[in-house]
């Protein structure tokens, strides 16, 4: 009897794991979302939003996991998808300006070419794609270079978010001991 129960248990385990495999597992690099105004959805339900919705980033968050990130995992001078899995997406809900260039409202993919002291930020018109594996420079809307800043302690997970600035907001990207700020005029 005990054997039968044990066998049934094993079958059930196998069955469950098979079932579980047929549906997508939780990603190793979980997706996340950032808004400007910062935390807009929460402000919205609390009726505390004082500025209209301007921008949103949807990205996945790889982890450092003991690795050297910049100059190691992310090679200097190469296009990096600034995320994981699906290409990192930025959506503007109104026309904005980046580095003096007009950017129409809409969805874009974000990439970066990382160097030791500066990053070239790339806004690309090809959306709904995977990573930067088929990155096509011909679909770039703009490129702009921003300086690298160092953080005090290493960040385990990549983070992308926004902060308010005098002329609108900055897109912040930080991972490991590096961070950058991309100014966006609203």
């Amino acid at each position, binding site marked *: 009897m005990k054997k039968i129960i044990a066998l049934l248990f094993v079958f*059930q385990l196998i*069955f*469950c794991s098979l*079932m*579980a495999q047929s*549906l*997508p*597992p*939780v*990603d190793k690099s*979980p*997706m*996340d*979302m*950032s*808004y400007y105004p*910062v*935390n*807009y*959805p*929460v402000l*919205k*339900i609390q009726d505390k939003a004082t500025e209209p*919705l301007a921008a*949103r980033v*949807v990205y996945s*968050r790889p982890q450092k996991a003991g690795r050297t990130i910049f100059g190691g995992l992310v090679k200097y001078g190469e296009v990096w998808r600034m995320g994981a899995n*699906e*290409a990192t997406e930025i959506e503007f809900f109104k026309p904005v300006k980046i580095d003096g260039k007009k950017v129409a409202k809409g969805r874009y993919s974000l990439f970066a070419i990382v160097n030791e002291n500066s990053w070239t930020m790339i806004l690309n018109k090809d959306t*709904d*794609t*995977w*990573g930067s*594996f*088929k990155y096509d420079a011909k679909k770039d809307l703009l490129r702009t270079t921003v300086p690298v*800043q160092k*953080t*005090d*302690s*290493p*960040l*385990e*997970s990549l*983070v992308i*978010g*926004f*902060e*308010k600035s005098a002329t609108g907001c900055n897109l*912040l990207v*930080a991972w490991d001991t590096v961070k950058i700020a991309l100014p966006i005029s609203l």
Partner: protein
Amino acid sequence: MRLTSCFLASCFLLFSCRNGKEDNTPVADSLKTKDSPVVSRTERPAANPYATVDVSPMDMIYYPVDYPKLKMTHTASQPPMARVIYSRPHLQGRHIFHEVLKYDEPWRLGANEATELMLYKEAMIQDKKIKAGRYTLYCIPHKENWTVAINATIDTWGLEPDSTRDVARFVVPVKQTQNNLEYFTMVFEQDKQSANLLMAWDDVEVRLPFRF
């Protein structure tokens, strides 16, 4: 140096606001719902001062299924038609009914931000035409069926959906399964010429049919 510390401090302040997500700030406390985690959030090895990784991670699904990968491999035979962005709460030893969800009470079909459905083109959902655009999704689970609602309030937090902004409601049957799915899971399934939006958690599944 002073500037740097000012910058860091302001970053910290700004991002700590954002931690309303599954965090233990006062904002988050007021937002905690029945699908909030029962364990405390931790991140190894050091806390992220900007934005903690969510206990209920976000995920994204497309129709055609896996569209971004098809696009990357140049095997996409049609343009994207639908996308859902949702967060994935997990059971953590609880049973979906009634330890996480209650029958007849609205549920945001996810966690954190309201679950978003984007239609790239007009779709027939069950028997109703829904225009292209972004919507939020929520449901009202019952024992035998779920009511799934498409709502016009977008870019919002998932709590307290405003039913006066519902665009359409659909009743779909519940299927009891032998599964014990830890994470809430949404996926588009190909079904002949149409698609089903599968919503599955624990031992319960519902499917909402889409045609494009």
